[in-house]
């Protein structure tokens, strides 16, 4: 076995060109795998983050007639028992209204929050570009688009009409930009009690919103919540059920990424296999004499398995380096106009290790064909005087 290893090593060293060629082949395969794999992972994380990162991932609403949760403090408490899997639990009072401004009346959504609870979900503090958050009753913040449309500045008062015919005036303390124009145009964000007052909700809320620490576990957690929450007439939704098309899109993307990776591996495997098979033929005379001298067939095969192993290791290491290089240049050269990378790259070491190990294993599998050839080689065929 030691002899097989040292012969394998010498074979690789003496055929440097060939060795380099195979190793580079494997390296290119591994780097493409890592690059495409991490790019698509990054894309998915980014997509999920923009889609649902700044929104409620599990939402509890009421199914009773008034659509109000009376005992919401208990619901909040019960949801908080699931920390740290469930985070940022926040009650909300939502309802439709219309904004009456100089020239027109437009529909808006009143959203009342405990701002300290809901800020981690929606990022109002980060999104606020002018003024401050509402702290008192009858104060509100509105989005950029709505402010522009209605010509509102911090300190101005807006008039809201509710569906039941009432009207309210709120003082705008600040303007926000949450990065989503439909929110910027429609939301009037205020305190919980203000919203309760406008919408006639008394002390109730319309929903309890929350996020989860592992976004893809939202459905499982929603199910657990359903079992443990005591309130009656409650309905629990999670983002996965509400975004089935996004999920199937992500799934399709993952599958295509796996397909690419599998075919890259197959190509690498065939390449190694054929080059090593040729090297069995090239060295058949030496193998023949080794067999005449009493090397066991299994040891003769091991020479090629070791070659496969070493080529795989070398290729994997080179490939990982090359993959990092590709990712680095991608984040340096594929930029948005503002200089940020088109896509943030998330380095997943587990995935990189997996790609590397796959390369090593495939190289060894590829070497089984030449190993078998060399095991079958009959010394007399080779040493028949020529």
């Amino acid at each position: 076995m030691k002899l097989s290893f040292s012969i394998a090593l010498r074979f690789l060293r003496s055929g440097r060109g060939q060795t380099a060629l195979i190793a580079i082949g494997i390296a290119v395969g591994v780097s493409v795998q890592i690059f495409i794999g991490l790019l698509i992972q990054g894309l998915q994380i980014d997509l999920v983050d923009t889609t649902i990162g700044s929104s409620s991932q599990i939402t509890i609403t009421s199914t009773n007639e008034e659509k109000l949760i009376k005992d919401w403090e208990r619901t909040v408490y019960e949801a908080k028992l699931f920390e740290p899997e469930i985070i940022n639990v926040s009650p909300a009072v939502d309802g439709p209204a219309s904004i009456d401004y100089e020239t027109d009346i437009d529909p808006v959504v009143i959203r009342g929050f405990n701002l300290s609870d809901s800020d981690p979900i929606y990022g109002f503090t980060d999104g606020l570009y002018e003024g401050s958050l509402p702290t008192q009753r009858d104060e509100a913040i509105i989005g950029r688009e709505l402010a522009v449309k209605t010509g509102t500045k911090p300190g101005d008062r807006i008039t809201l009409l509710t569906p039941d015919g009432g009207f309210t005036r709120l003082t705008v303390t600040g303007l926000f930009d949450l990065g989503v124009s439909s929110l910027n145009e429609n939301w009037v964000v205020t305190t919980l009690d203000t919203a309760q007052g406008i919408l006639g909700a008394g002390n109730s809320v319309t929903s309890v919103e929350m996020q989860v620490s592992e976004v893809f576990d939202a459905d499982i957690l929603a199910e657990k919540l359903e079992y443990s929450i005591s309130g009656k007439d409650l309905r629990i939704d999670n983002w996965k059920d509400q975004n089935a098309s996004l999920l199937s899109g992500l799934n399709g993307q993952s599958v295509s990424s796996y397909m690419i990776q599998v075919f890259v591996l197959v190509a690498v495997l065939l390449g190694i296999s054929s080059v090593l098979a040729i090297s069995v033929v090239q060295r058949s005379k030496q193998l023949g004499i080794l067999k005449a001298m009493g090397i066991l067939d299994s040891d003769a095969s091991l020479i090629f398995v070791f070659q496969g192993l070493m080529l795989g290791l070398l290729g994997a290491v080179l490939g990982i380096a090359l993959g990092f290089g590709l990712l680095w240049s991608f984040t340096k050269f594929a930029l948005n106009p503002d200089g940020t990378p088109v896509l943030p790259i998330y380095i997943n070491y587990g995935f990189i290790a997996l790609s590397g190990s796959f390369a090593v294993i495939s190289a060894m599998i590829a070497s089984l064909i030449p190993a078998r050839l060399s095991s079958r080689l009959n010394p007399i065929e080779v040493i028949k005087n020529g």
Partner: protein
Amino acid sequence: MANIIQLEEINKIYGEKIKTQVLFDLNLSFEENSFNSIIGASGSGKSTLLNIIGTLDKPTSGRVFIDGNRTDTLNKEELAVLRNKTIGFIFQFHYLLPEFTARENVLIPYRIGNYKVPREMEEWADELLDLVGLTKVKNNLATDMSGGQQQRTAIARALINRPKLILADEPTGNLDSDSTKTIYSTLRDINEKFKTTFVIITHDQRIAEQADRIVEIKDGRINLDIRK
């Protein structure tokens, strides 16, 4: 003296549909420590005979005994071990591993059967290289030596495991007459010094005549058997 090789009723037939019989009821034995040559026209079956003795080939029928062990019934692994310990091969072409130095090539048969190479084996390899006159080039890669030097390396390699038997198939077929002479005198020296049995196939009448015994094979049968 005891026989190191004993062949009984050996037949060898090649081919499935069209059968070609190469050896016919051959009975032949060689004594220990003897220096023998086998001669014969090409196609006479002498290489087949040597391959059967060397356990590289199996007879279609008959019994083969090497050093007291019946070999035609052993499996591949047992044969590999037997060849490694008991038989040294020298072929017309040296088939050294070009990636290894002369000295490393000489040690390969030992490394086939052993994990580590102890100091005394290294010294033995040096001694053998000295014997075949390669002390100066022992650390050269096989490709950096002349044809004669390569063949002498192959001889040293055949000796490293102190085999009782050396089988040589046209060992000088590829060399000029000066190298041929040197190599034969080396083989003779080894035969006397280490009491190794030699069976050498050659087409060179002058070389054959220097052996203790000449066996001529003709059409798969023994035509002549001359002992001195």
